[in-house]
């Protein structure tokens, strides 16, 4: 760019070089106003009015100064306002957030005013060109492709081509195979169904006794005689598994006390104890805990998608997207009068899945045969 030896070939260099002491090209002895007018002649570029631009410059400067102050305020706030309690965090969040917002807003506003009031108004035009290449270029590429394909021998040499394809097939499976151990149990997929069918209610305590029902949160066992007000409800977890999330994801119960005459035919009577019925709390739709209970109607409602179950009638679905009742857990009392599980659920709890089958119908058939 600075090499001026070959002036002849460069059109713009034909302009006489500036003689020391004369004004630079494009400037005027008369001042800047005329120079600006010269620039105005670029079509599609309209320079703003100088007095307006000067006023805008002041506003922009004010905006940038606000940013300067706010950014310093941010740094000071960081040092001054400590966190550690919800209140202190609230104050710190407010101070940091406000100063940051103002700082960025000032910068943004300044630039926008700069663009709109100080920079020219542009209506420049550029040509578009069709995206497609010239036909000639396409042909050259096509020829090159064909020539290359032939040169490589890929076309002619069948053995090479076929063994390459052969090699690619298992290699493509390698990453998939590698993912097999994502399942930590490493058991065959056929066993997934077995796992999903069982909950810890089928387990025994170390002493070989059935698991007691304990209150979620406190871990207190429940004496049937104490759980005696009809309409009462408890969220119940298995003894010994109070903090085992995997166990809770299937074994959490909802325990409801009924007056004997309230129970309808859907409830398995021999699985209840003195009007106390235990249902799985895990919704049969997609597995949310069906946590809401309406005492007067005996409705259990899942707050996620509003599947509604009639607790007095075997938790059968009366509304919403769930297709199956909440499974009932067989319960009884031990020698000390505490509620215990008689065994595991008869059918899988929670959301349905491909291998599940109609476990309810299966259980009924079994019951009928027995």
């Amino acid at each position, binding site marked *: 760019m600075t090499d001026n030896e070959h002036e002849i070939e460069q059109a713009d260099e034909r302009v006489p070089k500036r003689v020391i002491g004369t004004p630079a090209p494009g400037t005027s002895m008369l001042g800047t106003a005329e120079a600006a007018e010269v620039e105005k002649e670029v079509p599609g570029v309209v320079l703003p009015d100088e007095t307006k631009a000067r006023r805008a410059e002041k506003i922009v400067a004010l905006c940038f100064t606000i940013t300067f102050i706010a950014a310093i305020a941010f740094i000071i706030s960081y040092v001054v306002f400590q966190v550690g*309690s919800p209140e202190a965090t609230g104050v710190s969040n407010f101070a940091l957030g406000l100063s940051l917002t103002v700082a960025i807003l000032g910068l943004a506003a300044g*630039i926008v005013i700069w663009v709109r009031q100080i920079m020219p108004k542009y209506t420049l035009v550029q040509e578009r060109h069709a995206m497609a290449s010239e036909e000639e270029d396409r042909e050259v590429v096509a020829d090159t492709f064909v020539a290359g394909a032939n040169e490589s021998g890929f076309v002619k040499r069948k053995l090479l081509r076929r063994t390459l394809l052969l090699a690619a097939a298992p290699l493509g499976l390698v990453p998939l195979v590698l993912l097999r151990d994502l399942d930590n149990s490493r058991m065959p997929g056929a066993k997934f169904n077995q796992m999903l069918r069982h909950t810890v209610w089928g387990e025994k305590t170390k002493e070989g006794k059935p698991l007691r029902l304990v209150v979620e949160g406190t871990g207190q066992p429940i004496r049937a005689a104490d759980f005696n007000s009809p309409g009462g409800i408890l969220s119940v977890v298995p003894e010994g598994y109070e903090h085992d999330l995997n166990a809770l994801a299937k074994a959490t119960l909802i325990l409801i006390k009924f007056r004997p005459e309230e129970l309808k035919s859907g409830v398995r009577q021999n699985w209840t104890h003195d009007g106390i019925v235990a249902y799985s709390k895990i919704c049969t739709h997609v597995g*949310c805990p069906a946590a809401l209970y309406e005492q007067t109607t005996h409705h259990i409602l899942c707050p996620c998608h509003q599947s509604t179950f009639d607790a007095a009638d075997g938790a059968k679905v009366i509304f919403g997207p769930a297709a199956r009742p909440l499974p009932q857990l067989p319960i009884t009392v031990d020698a000390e009068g505490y509620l215990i599980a008689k065994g595991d659920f008869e059918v899988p709890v929670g959301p349905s899945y491909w291998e599940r089958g109609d476990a309810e119908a299966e259980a009924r058939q079994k019951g009928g045969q027995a």
Partner: protein
Amino acid sequence: MSDLRTVPNAVAGPSTFLDDRLGGANFLKRNLRKIFPDHWSFLLGEIALYSFVILLLTGTFLTFWFKPSMMEVAYDGSYAPLHGVMMSEAYASSLEISFDVRGGLLIRQMHHWSALLFVAGMTVHMLRVFFTGAYRKPREINWIIGVLLLTLALAEGLTGYSLPDDLLSGAGLRITEGVAISLPLVGTYITFFLFGGEYPGEDVISRFYSLHILLIPGILLALISAHMVLMWVQKHTQMPGKGRDNKNVVGAPFYPAFMAKAGAYFLFTLATVAGLATFTQINPIWLFGPYTPADVSAGSQPDFYMGFLEGALRIMVPWEINLFGTSHAGTLPLSVIIPALVPMGIIMTGLALYPFLERWVTGDNREHHIADRPRNNPHRTSIGMSAITFYGVLWLLGANDEISANFHISLNVTTYAGRVLIFLAPALAYLITYRMCLGLQRSDAAVISHGVESGVIKRLPHGEFIEVHTPPAEDIEAHVRGKEPVAMLPVAEDPTGIPPKGMRGPVGRLRARMSKAYGGEKIQLDDGHGHGHGDDQAALERSDDRSLTH
């Protein structure tokens, strides 16, 4: 200060160094003054772009403290109400970010807000591109990239939302599991592989973490870059207007004006996000407590972009099929599979295929660089509004418990209404939009042929009062006249009544019929009225001028 005459040394030195090695001047010569057309609706995509940048920055900050572990620890941070409570390290470290790191809560809230803005920005940008037909040739590839971006953004949101491991995020995770396990044949495998065994296991947070901070954002970044490069190479579309045609692009140069504007716009987005994070609390995880599968809080709501899936789950009827009898595998929980896959499938597949379907129906293989005004392609606009309504009904029903509680409507009624509206509302939206588009086209035609009401009432010699109409402003007229008929296949039958080649079979006949309905000009701009344009250029709007009323 006087203007620059030469490039200052501070710039020239490094530039020369770079150009000697990279030869960038050739590229910059052609691109520094690249023209970007101006329209407010072209800024919508930028919101998404800048939100993504903010997400990367704030997300990196969060990773400095976040521990993606489901190991149970007793909380000993500074949020007193949860002292001693057993929780996962993920939740404990999220609380640490919120209460023990200065600016941590602000950045966490900015991250969440910009995630919402990211999806919202993408969605409105996509709608703009759809309704203006900016996806047409040569931009179909960029449109598909956009659809992929939107899908990935939903996955990115879902994985991020699950990380803090509070009770609310766990509810979302549980629903994800319930949906995954419902899939035919592969459902149990997918869940066992995803969760490392039975739900919830101890792996899902760390797995979601690597998806959320590495894999998905990596793909997003690559696709966004491709999206930008294609936009740059193909040049932006422009609205119809004075001096604008399919062969040019009119607007402001990248350097300096567009660059500065874009920079300012990034800062506005950042300021908005910072302001929201300052004044508007989002996802107060400390109130929800640690996750346990035994509990859920009423009124649990996902982030807005998952609302349509939630709504679909809520209004579904309880269908479940056992394909091979009682005791065999083959359970299809349709009440989960259908809402989980069908709405998303319809929307995303429909979006991806639309440019190609439209091209098939219209036979239009030209390049389009002038954006359509939505009214000028009424069927497309109606289809778009139908889709919005479909999505909107699902989205609203995703909050039917809130609607029920706040407006005192029976919850069951909202669900039943949703089951009807999901079919009825899109059809209604189609009809209404179609009529509105035609009405707007008529009003355009009226402006062109009769001018604009001037507010000046004139009394004619025989006593009749008329309002003087003036011709529309030049730029408005050019904008309106930018309309062009929707392309149509040559469907006309020859004199013997034989349809053209390729339209004789059943598919061909359907295509021809669709083309006839979809294409063509519904309302002509100038249909040569024999009256009106008087000496004073005032046109009379007469009651017998039926061209404007029917």
